[in-house]
């Protein structure tokens, strides 16, 4: 196969490229330039975005004996990932830029351009597995479906940020590191091949926020917008420079002059962009057991019946291990943060966000997050069946699992406490 290896300059993508070469594929390395004004040298824990990182990627490609190019995706990155980051915070939501980058850049802009140029697949250094499974058809034939599964390396598993790419795009993806159980093994593979990036530190920060100061970045791009911090009773308890810089569940950096009357810690429980107001309250207001998702997508073989908003595969035999009840609910686990633990839930697909639950909000409760954007093409309803979750912010990605297998993904539109909570 002709494989495009996305090479950030880090150890993971270098080993992924090496494994693609050794598997016998015809590999070309491509480094994505995501900013026009890149730093010359790496700073802090960012490991993908400087000219030095591009040089590291080129050296790795040299060593592997593959051609190497830099593709300028900076405009697309600014127009999608950065613009979404700003507008989501502006709307009082909490975006995950890595999810958006996978959605719009790696598995859209890069993948589509690669496909158009004649590549069969894009290989990346992500930790996740693509498993193909044969589903028997009534006529005796079989249909191959591709499933996305967690990496056996729990600490590095990236299925959460990859799910957004969906089954059709992931069918053209290749994750050579999917089977590695630890980062140390990957580093050892790099060292064994003489790749100089073998000891390079991992990157954690948001790549386009130069110094890790998200609030400073937002302020530089969105400007200062002073407003009030209120408690759940509506009493003004402080001021802020822009409600956009706050996220539900946040405790630090609230800048409240005096402690709460009851002396308990206060958290951001709501961000209300319309009035530029930040609402703070006690921790228990952050607990939710209901989540409405928008922009839902489902992997092949999950949805039992065709629906206008999500076309499943054509037979009823395709979902042997997902058995919904008559109302469409099925048991699964959901994860709402990149490094969060999955929690048990029942889940169903709905046509639009916000149809259900209108009267199910506990009396007197303020929704923990209320900035739903309204109607979306396809929704997802989630009821947590175990313990509630704290600090589920609108804008975050929610991924539905069954064991290691990803069933679907949506963006949190809102999350709240039901009467049962």
């Amino acid at each position, binding site marked *: 196969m002709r494989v495009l290896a996305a090479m950030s300059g880090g150890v993971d993508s270098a080993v992924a490229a090496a494994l693609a070469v050794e598997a016998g594929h015809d590999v*070309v390395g491509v480094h994505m*330039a995501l900013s*026009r004004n890149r730093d010359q040298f790496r700073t802090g824990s960012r490991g993908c975005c400087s000219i030095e990182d591009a040089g590291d990627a080129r050296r790795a490609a040299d060593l592997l*004996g593959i*051609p190497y190019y830099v593709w300028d995706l*900076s405009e697309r990155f600014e127009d999608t990932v950065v613009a979404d980051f700003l507008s989501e915070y502006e709307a009082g939501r909490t975006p995950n830029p890595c999810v958006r980058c996978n959605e719009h850049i790696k598995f859209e802009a890069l993948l589509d351009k690669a496909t*158009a*140029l*004649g590549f069969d697949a894009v290989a990346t250094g992500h930790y996740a597995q693509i498993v193909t499974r044969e589903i028997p058809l009534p006529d005796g034939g079989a249909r191959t479906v591709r499933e996305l599964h967690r990496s056996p390396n729990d600490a590095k598993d990236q299925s959460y940020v990859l799910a957004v790419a969906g089954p059709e795009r992931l069918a053209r993806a290749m994750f050579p590191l999917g089977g590695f159980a630890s980062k140390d093994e990957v580093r050892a593979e790099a060292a064994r091949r003489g790749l100089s990036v073998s000891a390079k530190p991992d990157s954690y920060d948001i790549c386009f926020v130069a110094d890790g100061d998200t609030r400073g970045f937002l302020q530089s791009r969105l400007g200062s917008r002073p407003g009030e911090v209120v408690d759940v009773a509506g009493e003004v308890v402080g001021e802020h420079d822009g409600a956009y810089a706050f996220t539900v569940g946040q405790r630090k950096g609230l800048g409240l002059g005096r402690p709460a009357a009851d002396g308990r810690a206060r958290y951001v429980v709501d961000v209300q962009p319309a009035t530029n107001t930040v609402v703070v309250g006690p921790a228990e207001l952050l607990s939710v057991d209901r989540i409405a998702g928008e922009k839902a997508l489902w992997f092949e073989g999950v949805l039992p019946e065709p629906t206008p908003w999500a076309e499943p595969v054509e037979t009823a035999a395709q979902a042997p291990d997902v058995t919904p009840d008559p109302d469409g609910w099925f048991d699964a686990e959901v994860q709402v943060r990149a490094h969060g633990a999955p929690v048990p839930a029942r889940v169903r697909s709905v046509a639009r966000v916000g149809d259900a639950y209108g009267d199910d909000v506990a009396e007197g409760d303020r929704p923990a997050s209320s900035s739903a954007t309204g109607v979306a093409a396809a929704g997802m309803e989630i009821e947590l069946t175990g313990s509630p979750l704290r600090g589920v912010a609108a804008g975050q990605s929610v991924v539905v699992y069954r064991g290691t297998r990803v069933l679907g993904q949506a963006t949190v539109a809102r999350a709240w406490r039901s009467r049962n909570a």
Partner: protein
Amino acid sequence: MIVTTPPPDPARTPLTVSGAHGASRREPDGAYLDHAATTPMSAAALAAYVAEAQRTGNASSLHSAGRTSRRAVEEARETLAKSLGARPSEIILTSGGTEADNLAIKGIFWGRRAQDTHRTRILVSAVEHHAVLDPAFWLAGHAGAEIVLLPVDGEGRLDLDALRAELAAHADETALISVMWANNEVGTVQPVRDVVRAARPYGIPVHTDAVQAVGQIEVDFTESGVDAMTVSGHKLGGPVGVGALLAKRDLALDAVLHGGGQERGVRSGTLDTASIAAFGVAARHAVDCRPQRAARLAALRDDLVARVRAAAPDAVLRGPDPASDPAGRLPGNAHFTFPGAEGDSLLYLLDSAGVQASTGSACQAGVPQPSHVLLAMGVPEAEARGALRFTLGATSTESDVDRLVAALPQVVARAQAAGLVSGRAMGELA
């Protein structure tokens, strides 16, 4: 654009191969159509390089080893002078074209300002190489210079009326003028003699970057009337890492590199005898062979242009059309934009097909930027992104063109398909 290929197998890379065209350093595999980036060393230049590199001696030393090196340097200087229409004392040897351009822009600016503090304006054409533009803008940021970008027409040729108007209004404040002899991207030959004629009444020095011109068209330093001229070794069959600034002896020129006082005290640093010797040999060879070679390359280029147009009918030739203005363009240069395609896609696909070309413009972090030359010519940014430059040299043959033309239709179709799904094309449609 960074293009990295596997290191060549030493067993398959003979040290010297004397080809039919007198080139010795092995040309890259496939069709190499990027001679404006660098061109193979001639056999004679490589032999001169090896002979001097095997000797020990610092040309500034007074003992016999030093004298031997000095003699090789001075013979090369005389050869260069003769080939370029200059006097030996006018040749300041440098590490290449970029250093020579920096020395010209900074050295003349500082030298002129020392004479008259009001002379802060630097006039440069908008299509200069970055080795001229960037030192000029550096002076604007650090030394109070004002940069005047002189406009060009749709073919990249300097607007002389704009220059004359600028001089009429601000001659007293002008430190220098720099207009290249021929453009490195679209091959446009500039009216350097007219620039000199316009500047002479005001006594304003003129620098020209002739890196692309030497060996392609006739270049005579004295006859041209310019005060300073940049030349480079590796663009004319010499080694990388050597070049020269030709400077009239009465030109006020401050040093950029300070140290041992070599090269009239203007360019310190131990002289690279081997490279300089090879540079001299290569320059003589390039200039002596120029009439026949230029005619051959122009014919090959005309064929390339015609066949590219046939293979990719929507390709747009940028720069002067050689059919109507043969003297207006370097004989070895062809340059096109391909609507709807991005240069880096075209480059990758051609490279995969064994054809090595260039987007022609500078890279930032390996990313081709829309060419400032094309933008100055009035080409819209979207079209400028689809640029490809093909440049021919001593080793170019009809088979190189055959290979390009055979690959081109599919390459352009694919790159246009990729352009449709790329962010830019989407953005433009939206």
